[in-house]
């Protein structure tokens, strides 16, 4: 089928601002949007730039706005969006070139969450694993799925308003550790989450949950965090 693809283009070395370029190409309904982009780059316009790596939705490289929503280009098929496709960079990040945005602030927010297991107690005497029941493990399973693609954070109206906001992806990371029964750093993370740019800036708009390619129930995870801050219970 013939598809019309409208892509946001911005070349920092030439343009003062971005513009849209429309391409018409042949594509299979089962092609990924990423295949479409590769095709355009390979055949029509080599300068078109975007990030990608795994091509099947597990590395988090290619989050972008596809027909007005944040999606991974490698996880949306042409048949999911139809013959008119608009592709734009993520909102609320500096555009470096075409579909490539500046991810630094995003990773900085991630790093604010103490994103590693905190446990200063001695290891089990036999040197074996710290025990954890399947139920305790299940408690934070969802939030371990995050691939740091930034689809959620850049769909959040609070993040659009100001990028000091830690953003849902950072909260998912915090959730991953706070509810891990082996972790002892909950309190230090909760204190950070309680800052002005923390969880209070989440107004349950659910754009994040809707955008997450890993289907993490982000808003619910944020709810867990808010409740933990109020009640202190980490169950």
């Amino acid at each position, binding site marked *: 089928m013939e598809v019309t693809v409208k892509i946001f283009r911005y070349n*920092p070395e030439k343009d003062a601002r971005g513009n849209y370029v429309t391409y018409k190409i042949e594509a299979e309904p089962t092609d990924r949007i990423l295949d479409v982009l590769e095709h355009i780059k390979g055949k029509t316009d080599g300068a078109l730039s975007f990030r990608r790596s795994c091509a099947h939705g597990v590395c988090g490289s290619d989050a972008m706005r596809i027909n007005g*929503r944040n999606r991974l280009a490698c996880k949306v098929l042409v048949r999911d969006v139809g013959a008119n496709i608009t592709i734009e960079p993520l909102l609320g990040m500096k555009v470096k070139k075409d579909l490539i945005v500046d991810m630094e602030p995003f990773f900085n927010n991630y790093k604010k969450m103490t994103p590693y297991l905190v446990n200063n107690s001695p290891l089990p005497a036999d040197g074996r694993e710290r025990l954890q029941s399947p139920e305790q493990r299940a408690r934070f399973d969802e939030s371990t799925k995050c691939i740091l693609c930034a689809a959620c954070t850049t769909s959040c109206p609070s993040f659009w308003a100001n990028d000091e906001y830690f953003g849902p992806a950072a909260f998912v990371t915090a959730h991953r550790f706070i509810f891990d029964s082996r972790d002892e750093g909950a309190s230090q993370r909760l204190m950070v989450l309680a800052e002005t740019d923390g969880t209070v800036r989440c107004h349950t*708009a*659910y754009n994040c949950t809707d955008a997450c390619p890993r289907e993490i*129930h982000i808003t619910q995870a944020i709810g867990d965090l*808010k409740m933990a801050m109020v009640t202190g219970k980490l169950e």
Partner: protein
Amino acid sequence: MGLKRNVPLSAALGYKGQGPFLAFILHRVGGAGMAIFITMHVLSTFAEMRGLAIGDALNKVYTSPPFQIFILFCVLFHAINGLRITLLDIFHAKLMPHYRKIIAVEWVVFILVFGFAAVSVVATAIGRM
């Protein structure tokens, strides 16, 4: 180098969020609308009671049907949606997985109440004419 990160309002409103995103926008419009209205309303009534004439002009605006419908929308949507938010926050573990259904219910309730109110405003307005 790079483009600024600013998200213009048009781009923000153009984001294809789902029901909850719309609810968030309307909740904010409603809350801010009410806050402004209450402030104005209180101050103008106060001014009127203290013998200043500015209150009168404003009162005309308040009683005009379009404004009434607008402010009723703000109040009712904000109140009903606010209840939804509060309940979901408190019982989030149980309710959040069903957020789509809950919002659907919320719209039904809202349309009923607001419809009633709007009809009432219009009927009064016609009655006065």
